[in-house]
């Protein structure tokens, strides 16, 4: 198992390098002189020269690229152009909120999606199945900001069950969790839809297999057959969608954070864009890409845990 994990971690290195190179190029293709974009076209030549010096724009593109990679290897993402604070600090300040939201929505997604998918497959064409299909259709159709606004109108403004603004400075843990409910349901909605679909089709396939008939004919209780024998086979595809949609989740987190007014990585990205803070933007892209590469790696490692056949192959 450890060898498998180490092998998988080594495989992530070239991908990370390629991703970093892409980020570097993307930020460099910005048309126009970055110093004019940052300082405005009224800025004096001296101020622009100073900024060019500060940003290292006078060096050759290859030297800039080398500096960029070396900085990241040292765990340094540079400083924000607008606040002049280290980008790592900016990220560290909001990261817990994003992680908390992502984990909560993953829990919502699997806790609702898996049982719903299993139930739908067990009672194929029954009411549960019909409900699961409509629910997942609506779930995949909702743009994250639309569902967020409707949840906000319904449960925060009309019913007043939850706070309208999910402030991070809520005093008690209970209040904090209350503020987390609507954002995580919103972010989990898409997850529920995908997990339900994958679980349902995987279970339908598994329940038709010979070994399920064998297990049934041995007289094993129904619940044991469904959850231990059939469900184990669905774990790999479920882990795959969860891992795959972590990327989508990060995109949707931007919107969820805006609508519910929560701090987080997504909101920081929009702030960086609005303020044309390119070093912050570059740093955030690096962090996002790292997160996704890490998520893919964890997904693969989880395969090894849930399916012993993966390790050996």
């Amino acid at each position, binding site marked *: 198992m450890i060898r498998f994990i180490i092998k998988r971690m080594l495989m992530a290195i070239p991908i990370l390098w390629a*991703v970093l190179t892409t980020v570097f190029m993307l930020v460099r293709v910005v048309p126009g002189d970055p110093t004019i974009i940052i300082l405005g076209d009224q800025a004096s030549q001296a101020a622009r020269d100073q900024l060019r010096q500060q940003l290292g724009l006078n060096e050759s593109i290859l030297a800039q690229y080398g500096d960029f990679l070396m900085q990241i290897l040292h765990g340094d993402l540079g400083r924000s152009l607008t606040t002049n604070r280290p980008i790592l600090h900016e990220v560290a300040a909001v990261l817990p909120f994003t992680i908390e939201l992502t984990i909560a929505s993953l829990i919502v997604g699997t806790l609702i999606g898996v049982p719903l998918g299993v139930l739908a497959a067990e009672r194929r064409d029954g009411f549960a*199945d*019909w409900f699961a299909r409509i629910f997942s259709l609506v779930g*995949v159709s909702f743009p994250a*900001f639309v569902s967020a606004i409707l949840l906000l109108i319904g449960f925060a403004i009309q019913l007043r069950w939850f706070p309208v603004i999910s402030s991070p400075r809520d005093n008690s843990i209970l209040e904090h969790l209350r503020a987390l409910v609507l954002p995580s349901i919103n972010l989990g909605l898409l997850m529920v839809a995908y997990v339900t679909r994958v679980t349902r089709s995987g279970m339908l396939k598994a329940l038709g297999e010979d070994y399920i008939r064998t297990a049934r004919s041995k007289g094993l209780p129904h619940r044991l057959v469904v959850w231990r024998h059939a469900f184990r086979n669905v774990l790999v595809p479920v882990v795959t969608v969860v891992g795959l949609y972590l990327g989508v989740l990060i995109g949707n987190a931007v919107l969820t954070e805006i*609508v519910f007014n929560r701090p987080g990585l997504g909101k920081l990205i929009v702030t960086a864009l609005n303020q044309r803070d390119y070093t912050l933007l570059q740093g955030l892209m690096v962090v996002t890409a790292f997160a996704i590469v890490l998520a893919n790696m964890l997904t693969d490692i989880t395969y090894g845990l849930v399916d012993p056949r993966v390790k050996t192959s």
Partner: protein
Amino acid sequence: MSASTILQRSLRSGGLVTGAVIVVAMIALACAAPLVAPYDPNAQDVLSVLADPSAAHWFGTDQFGRDVLSRVLWGARISLYVGFVSTSAGVAIGTVIGVISGYYGGIVDRLIVAATDVLLSFPQLIMGLLLVAVLGASLTNLIIAIAVTAVPAFIRMARGSTLTMRERDFVDACRALGYGDLRIMFLHVLPNILDEIVVMASLWMASAIRTESTLAFIGLSVPPPTATWGGVVRDGFDNLLDAPWLAVFPSLAILAVMIGLNLMGDGLRDASDPKGK
């Protein structure tokens, strides 16, 4: 036959039809916007600002007294247009590259696969955000940005399908007949993978419209006062406490098109799947 069976059956067989009806109706309304919209979408009426829905203004009015129904109808034109054009462009470019890459294989193929893997490791929305921010918010740039996010997905898919087609006997037969590579790729391989591409394109169009409305919601779309769905939702969101209905109607319009396109996509996929359950 129980009610749930009927509903479920009509969902299975009628999903495609229902979806198509919704989408066609929306396209018709968008095309007819100049005729059916009750007001000029940009006409401000300071005397009826944030008015409740009424007989005069079915969906109410926004913070400038503009008629929301008219803005939703006109906004449909932009949203559907961007969705259609950007998906078509992304599908066309991605498919051509994917077919060529899969057909020839070799080092170029491997480089293309590596490049798509890297591009796909950025979330679609973040990529779109970045591209529009870099290029500047305009109709053309919006279409370019959304098309670019579609390209790697279609490269991957067209390449995969081409790989399996390449091994088929009919391709060998074409070679034996002395057909050129271009002719084999685009007259013989492409038609055989087209059904999968059409299915994915219909699902992708939903995703393109979602991206457009999302970018508009963030403020990175066609500049105001032009009405776009995401922009109208944004106006509603900014006045959420005073006039919650403002955001609801355009939201429902977006949701309806999403459901329509997803129903169509799922229906097409089921219909084209020979193992159809």
